[in-house]
Structures are given as structure tokens and as C-alpha cells.
């Protein structure tokens, strides 16, 4: 079978030759020229000679009956008649008036009102710029009106079935006219025919032969999508509008209008506007921009909580810049007042604190009953997690701003002295260290006898347990984000605005994603997606497999926190002072909790309670 390389063909030119100018039909209609060609014949500009003193222009639509079999022929004639009868009964300002119908040889002719203007496909072709959103919305509202009229037709609704830019004309008054009722049908529920309608604009159910009024609304949504993005859906995989969000292509479109059109393009008809009134109302609301459009996908799980309260709060004496740790009913958090605090996880009651001599930016780590605290006073402290009793300290040669990793009897951490230090936890003595190009501020990742970490020069290292550098990667700016390893792929962000995905064995760059700004957040991974935050204010969800963005959520300031995932929610703080809870699948906000100042650290979840600190000096605990 010979393969076609294009999606289903749209038009095919008639092979019987067009009527030439000068030919007169029925001794009345003088053919002046061709306006266009369609699937079944041409549309001509003509003049009605019954009005000799004026030039009464008409449009003459020709329908050539190519069926040779008598039964087929009869059926085709009846189809033509049906269009004529339909149009004869429809009276609406947006539908061309029909004046006459006759058959001549193998062809039938419809004589209609001549419309001076251009169809929307021609209008799109006539310019390289995006059409004005207000104009498109105005047309859309008129189209809803005519669809409302058609769908409300008595005794049976009329389904247009072929809504698309080339079937909408804009007349000399700037109003829409729906043309080409060739396949419009009186709707019989339950009836199925063959797929008809233009690929790209037709809804999925129309491929099964089910054409209903809801299908016209989908096609209208598809038409509006095309008009606003200038992307012809016939050149794209069918039903893939969700892959081409309007605002991504044309940022000039308002989110409200984008939301309305998305609502018409859901591929389950039950999820679309149920009638053109609904669609029109939504458009009008969006047009007036009176508030945000409600999401049609609201389910009980997404009902925003209006009042979100903390379970408890505890106030320290200075900013909390880092992330807390939880162990056996206790919360540990470092503060810029040089102390590490130990609080009761249930009620936030103060248990004890330990004073170091420098600020604590790193997250405390508990391993085997020992609490490790890295301080800017150059020291790593090992304390008993229970009571905060000092076991040993280790001195590096620069401030410690990196969260340690405890693995197999050793503790790995970086320092501003440009070294990665590896200390034996039993003795507090250094086992080995490795020099990097600059300060190391991320948490090193230890996996399968390799240590992975980035540093402030942008270099990223893979080192073995003897301290030998196995490979090295270079980003353009600092890597303060800690790497994560999933299925032998490493993911981390850089201040060079990029999230990198490297193959862990050799450090080969498999893909990268450009964010809107620098990132220091450590990515999180969940069900095939990566989540991270950026100084551009957004929280991103990316598909790890093909490096495509799934969604992004905008906060009001930089996002330096690393996202935390618990059940089907994602939690992240923002420098705007709020802690956000988003639905992990869609990125929609469930709730947000506002603190007194920027949140730069991340949250941690234990036993369904979320703990985090803010630069407003407080530690918060909230129910997830």
C-alpha cells in the first residue's frame, strides 16, 4: 500500500472544469469569476440579471454530483437539497441568506447572499503578526451567538460540523458570517456517520462519526487557538492542543482567555462547555477581566483551604535560613544566631540548644543517634541527638555552608576552604579530602562508592572513595544546588539558569533545561518528573524522560527552597514569605501560608507534619 505522507487531504480540486466568466445559468445568474473552490465544486461570484439597473451581486455555490450509480446519485441530490432546505429555514444575521436553488446537468447550485470581506484563513495569511486578542474574543462571542442559534433550532438542533477559519468570513462591517453549510446536519442523537469535518479542528468523537453540538464548541475552541497562536492544527498531531499552550506561543494573550479556550478543548465532551451560552459567558467574563476564571477541573481535592493555620510556631533569635531535620519526635534547626535548636516535634516546646561560634546555614543531619551540625565557624560538630552533648568537633579551614551526608561510618561535607572533607564518625578524624576549584556549598551526594558535588566556580565533580576525580563537568556559574541521582542520571541546577541532566557514569550531558533565572534549589524527583525552583520566581515541573516542561507555578519572588514532595502535594517556600502547597500533577495551588519574611530554606515532612523555618526567626509546623 502506498503510504501518504500527509494527514488526510483537505480539499481536492474538481476535475470537471470550472464555469468560465460570462456563462449564464438559468438565464438569470451571470458568472463573473471564482471566489473559491471546495470539496464538491466551486463558489462563484455572480450577478443576478433580474435586477438590470443595479449590480446585484450573488454567490453561486456549485455542487457537482459525481455519483454514477443511480441510487448514489439520488442520495447525493438529496444531500444538496437538504443543505438548501436548511439554509432556507435559517434566518440569522451571521448566516448568509439563500435566494435560489436549482439543478443543471450533473450539478446543483445554491444562490446566496454575496459577502464582501475575507475569511479568517485569508486574514491570517495577510499578516505576520498575532491578531489582537480583543478582536478574536469579539469574533468568538459572535460565533457563540450563531452556534447558539443553530443548536437551539427547532424541531432539531443543527450541528455545523465544519467550524474552522476558512468557513468564517468577516464582512465589511466587521461581523462574522458563517459560510459553507455543506456538511451541517440536523442532529439526531445516537446516529453515527463516517468521519467528516476538517482534521485538526474536529473533536475526537467526530472521528467515530458522532457529530453533536458539543463538537462545534470544540471546533470553535480549535479555531480560536489557531487564530491566537497562528499555529494551524492541521499541521500538528490531532488533539494535541494541550501541548501548545496559547500563552507559551503568544504571551500577549491573557491567562483568563487562555483558560476559556482550554475549557473548550477538553477531549472528553463532558469536560467542555455544555452549550455555547456557557462558552460565551465565559468569554465575556474574561473579556471584562472581572476576576480570575474558575478552573473547570476543580475536584474536592483541589478545593483551596481558606484558612490555613500552623500547628505551632517557635521563635528563635535570628533568621532561619536553612532546613530543619526531624528525628524521633524532635525537630532540629540551625539559626543565624549561631545556635542549633532542638524542639519537641508535637508542640514546638523548646528542649535544648547548642551554641556554635558561627551562623548555621546548613541543615543538621542525624545518623545513628548523632547530630552533625556544620557551622560558619569552620567547625563540624558531632553532638548526641538526644541531649546535645558534644562528642567531637572537626576543623576545616573555611566556613561550612554545606549540609553534610552521613554514609557508612563517614561524614561527607564541603567547605568554603574549597575542599570536600570526609571524616570518620567514630573518631572525628579526617579520612581524606579532595580539593575543588572553589567553595563547596551543596550537600554532596554519596552513592555506589562515588561522591558527587558541585562548587561555586561551576565545576561539578565525581570522585571515588580514594579521592580520585573520575570526571568533571563545567557549568557556566556556581552550582550551589545539591545533586540527586535517579536511575543512573544526575540532576542538579546551576546559577547559570540551567537544570542539568547528566549520565552519572561518565558525566555526559544528556539534556538541560533553561529556567528563567538562576537556581540554587535541589531538585526533587517523583513519578518521572523533576521539580525545582528558580530565582525567576517559578516552581517548575519537568518530564525527566524528554526534558519537557509539564507545568510551572509563579510565586511573587525568588524560589530558593528545594521542593518537598509528600503524597500528592508539593511544598515549597518562596522569598515572597509564603509556603506554597501545590497539587503535584497539575501545579495548581492548594493553599499558601504566609510568614513574616522570606523563606530561603526548605521544608521537611515527618509523620504528616510539615516543618520549615523563615527569616522571620520562626520555625513552623503545619498539617499536610
Amino acid at each position, binding site marked *: *500500500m502506498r*503510504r*501518504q*505522507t*500527509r*494527514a*488526510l487531504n483537505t480539499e481536492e480540486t474538481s476535475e470537471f472544469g470550472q464555469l468560465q466568466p460570462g456563462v449564464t445559468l438559468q438565464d438569470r445568474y451571470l458568472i463573473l469569476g471564482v471566489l473559491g473552490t471546495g470539496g464538491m465544486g466551486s463558489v462563484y461570484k455572480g450577478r443576478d440579471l433580474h435586477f438590470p439597473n443595479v449590480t446585484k451581486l450573488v454567490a453561486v455555490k456549485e455542487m457537482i454530483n459525481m455519483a454514477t450509480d443511480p441510487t448514489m446519485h439520488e442520495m447525493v441530490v438529496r444531500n444538496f437539497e437538504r443543505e438548501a432546505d436548511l439554509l432556507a429555514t435559517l434566518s440569522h444575521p451571521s448566516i448568509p441568506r439563500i435566494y435560489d436553488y436549482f439543478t443543471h446537468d450533473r450539478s446543483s447550485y445554491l444562490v446566496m447572499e454575496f459577502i464582501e470581506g475575507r475569511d479568517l484563513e485569508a486574514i491570517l495569511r495577510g499578516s505576520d503578526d498575532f491578531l489582537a486578542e480583543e478582536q478574536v474574543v469579539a469574533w468568538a462571542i459572535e460565533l457563540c451567538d450563531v452556534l447558539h442559534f443553530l443548536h437551539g433550532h427547532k424541531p432539531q438542533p443543527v450541528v455545523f460540523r465544519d467550524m474552522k477559519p476558512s468557513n468564517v468570513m468577516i464582512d465589511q462591517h466587521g461581523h462574522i458570517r458563517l459560510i459553507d453549510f455543506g456538511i451541517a446536519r440536523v442532529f439526531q442523537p445516537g446516529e453515527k456517520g463516517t468521519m467528516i469535518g476538517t*482534521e485538526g479542528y474536529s473533536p*475526537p*468523537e467526530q*472521528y*467515530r462519526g458522532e457529530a453533536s453540538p458539543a463538537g462545534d464548541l470544540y471546533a470553535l475552541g480549535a479555531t480560536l487557538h489557531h487564530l491566537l497562536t497562528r499555529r494551524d492544527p492541521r*499541521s*500538528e*498531531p*490531532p*488533539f494535541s492542543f494541550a501541548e501548545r499552550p496559547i500563552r507559551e506561543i503568544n504571551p500577549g494573550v491573557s491567562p483568563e482567555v487562555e483558560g476559556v479556550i482550554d475549557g473548550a478543548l477538553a*477531549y472528553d465532551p463532558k469536560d467542555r462547555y455544555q452549550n455555547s451560552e456557557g462558552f460565551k459567558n465565559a468569554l465575556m467574563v474574561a473579556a471584562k477581566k472581572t476576576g480570575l476564571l474558575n478552573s473547570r477541573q476543580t475536584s474536592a481535592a483541589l478545593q483551596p483551604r481558606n484558612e490555613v493555620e500552623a500547628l505551632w510556631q517557635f521563635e528563635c533569635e535570628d533568621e532561619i535560613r536553612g532546613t530543619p531535620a526531624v528525628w524521633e519526635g524532635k525537630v532540629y534547626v540551625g539559626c543565624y544566631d549561631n545556635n542549633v535548636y532542638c524542639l519537641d516535634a508535637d508542640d514546638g516546646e523548646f528542649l535544648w540548644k547548642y551554641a556554635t561560634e558561627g551562623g548555621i546555614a546548613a541543615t543538621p543531619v542525624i545518623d545513628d543517634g548523632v547530630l552533625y551540625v556544620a557551622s560558619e565557624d569552620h567547625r563540624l560538630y558531632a553532638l548526641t541527638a538526644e541531649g546535645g552533648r558534644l562528642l567531637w568537633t572537626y576543623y576545616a579551614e573555611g566556613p561550612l555552608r554545606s549540609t553534610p551526608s552521613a554514609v557508612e561510618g563517614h561524614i561527607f561535607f564541603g567547605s568554603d576552604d574549597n575542599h570536600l572533607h570526609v571524616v570518620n564518625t567514630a573518631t572525628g578524624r579526617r579520612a581524606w579530602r579532595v580539593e575543588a576549584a572553589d567553595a563547596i556549598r551543596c550537600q554532596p551526594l554519596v552513592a555506589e562508592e562515588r561522591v558527587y558535588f558541585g562548587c561555586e566556580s561551576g565545576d561539578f565533580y565525581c570522585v571515588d572513595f580514594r579521592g580520585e576525580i*573520575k*570526571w*568533571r*563537568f*563545567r557549568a557556566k556559574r556556581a552550582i550551589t544546588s545539591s545533586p540527586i541521582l535517579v*536511575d*543512573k*542520571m544526575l540532576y542538579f541546577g546551576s546559577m547559570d539558569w540551567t537544570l542539568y*541532566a547528566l*549520565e*552519572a*557514569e*561518565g*558525566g*555526559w*550531558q*544528556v*539534556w*538541560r533545561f533553561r529556567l528563567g533565572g538562576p537556581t540554587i534549589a535541589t531538585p526533587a524527583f517523583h513519578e518521572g518528573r523533576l521539580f525545582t525552583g528558580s530565582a525567576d520566581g517559578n516552581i517548575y515541573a519537568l518530564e525527566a*524522560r*524528554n*526534558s519537557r516542561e509539564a507545568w510551572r507555578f509563579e510565586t511573587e519572588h525568588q524560589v530558593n527552597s528545594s521542593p518537598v514532595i509528600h503524597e500528592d502535594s508539593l511544598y515549597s517556600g518562596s522569598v515572597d514569605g509564603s509556603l506554597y502547597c501545590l497539587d503535584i500533577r497539575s501545579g495548581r495551588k492548594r493553599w499558601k501560608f504566609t510568614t513574616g519574611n522570606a523563606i530561603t530554606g526548605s521544608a521537611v515532612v515527618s509523620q504528616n507534619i510539615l516543618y520549615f523555618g523563615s527569616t522571620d526567626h520562626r520555625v513552623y509546623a503545619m498539617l499536610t
Partner: protein
Amino acid sequence: MSFLQRLFGRGKTEDLDPQDQRTADTAPLDPDRSEITPVEDIRRHVLFGSAQSVGVERDHNEDALFVLLLNASGFDAIPDFGLFVVADGMGGHRSGERASAISVQTVARRVTQETLLRLFEEDDRANLPALHELLREALEEANRSVVELVPGGGTTLTAAVLLGEQLTIGHVGDSRAYLVQNGTTEVITRDHSLVERLRELGQLTPDEAATHPQRNVLYRAIGQGDNLEVDVFTQPVPRGGHVLLCSDGLWGEVADEEILRIISSTTDLQQACEELVRAANAAGGPDNITAVLVQFPPPAT
């Protein structure tokens, strides 16, 4: 002396005396080792096989194929690298074979130029261009070449780049990449055919899709115009399993279960590919057939 004696400078060996019961001295067995266990430390490499056929109904082959595989071992050796490409051309008057050939050459050239030799450079290694971008650009370049040089021609193209433990695939059209492991086959590429799209949306059952009159209609192929959209994705290599790249001349005629059976029936990859091709021809062979089969050794324990 006889002739032989002069030649060899010595006499015949003595006939063994059947009464002589002497045996040679041998070293005594180490009493601590009651049995000798053979040490098996054989490093296995990635291997491939490939086969093509014009098929039964066609008179020339419009499929194209490219395979490059690199294995190295030793201290700090570069990881396995491979590039496997299958393309199925279309369009009248032999445009198909030109379209597929140009596309495969363009992709092979771009990918090897930007990755292969750089693998050997210590410093350059970490600065390989991101694979996703590279593959996407390579297929886009192939598209521009075909649009310019073979008007009216088009081709599918599925390229798999092996780098260490990851397999990255760049794909347009309805040739396929299968993952075969743990006794199952899975198609990891998406057919860019109208019918597949409908099946994805639940509008057609797989059986309806297989017999649909428009099942060969593609909505995406190389050479169709500007703005080519390429599927690119990465997944871990199937350790202990196989990856099969093939044109629809194979998968359209041979069911997944049969593909699995043939691949599992032999360790000879070349034989497996030839058997797959034979199976497609036996089923009627309406189209050109191409198969590339890559085997990945199980992880070292």
C-alpha cells in the same frame, strides 16, 4: 641411516615396551583444594546484529540503516558508545530511497562529529553538547536537507544513541524502537500515525487500529515541510535485555509475541535479525524490512 634419519638427525623413537609400567611423575594435588573451581570473569560487551530485505511486493529498498558501536575496557576506559539509525523512505520515483539515505547520513554525521571523537578528550568529555539538543538538531538538519534535495520525498527516522548507561532516542514517524527484557516487549517510541493517535485517545481499539484503512497515514515525517517536531527522550539501558529498531515492514507483519519468541530463541543476534526478516516475508512482505538488534550484557555482579 635412512633418509628420514638424515633429515631429522635422529633415529626413530623406541617402540614402547608394553611391559613398561612406568608413568611420568606428577606433582601431588594440593590437599587444601579438593576441587578446582574455574574462575569465570568474562567481561561481556554490547553487541548487535542487523538485517534488511526488500520484501516480497516491492522491487527496491527505500529503507536506510546505520550502525556504529564502540566497546572499550581498561582502566578509566570511555564508556560504551553506539549510534543506531533506521529510516523508511517514501514518495514516488525513488524519492524514498534518497530521502532515507540523506537523512540517515546527516544524522550519523552530526551525532558522530559532536560526540565520538570528543569521548577521547579528557577535558572535552564533560563538554559534549547536551544529547537531546544534538539529536533534535540532527533530525532537523536532515529535514531541511530532504526538503531541499528531495522534493516530494519523505522518510521516517528513529535514531538511538547509547552513551554509558543511558539510551537516548530521537524519533519521527512510525518506525519503532522496542525494549525487550524480562520476557516482555515494549514499544518505547510513539508512532506518529493518525491511527495511533486515535488509539491513544481510546477512540480505536488496537485491533481496529491494526486494520484501519488509514493506518499508514502519518502526521509527522521528515521532509514534509519546516518546523519538524522531534520526539527525544532518554531511558536507562536494559541490562540483560535487548533494543530492537525496525521499520514498519517488520512490526506491521510480525506480532510482538513472535518478535519476542524469535529474539529469545537464539543468542546469535545476526541469526535473530535474519529470522525476523524471514518472518515478515513469510507474512507477505508487503513493504521493505529493516531490523537492528542490540544486546546489553547483564550488570556485573
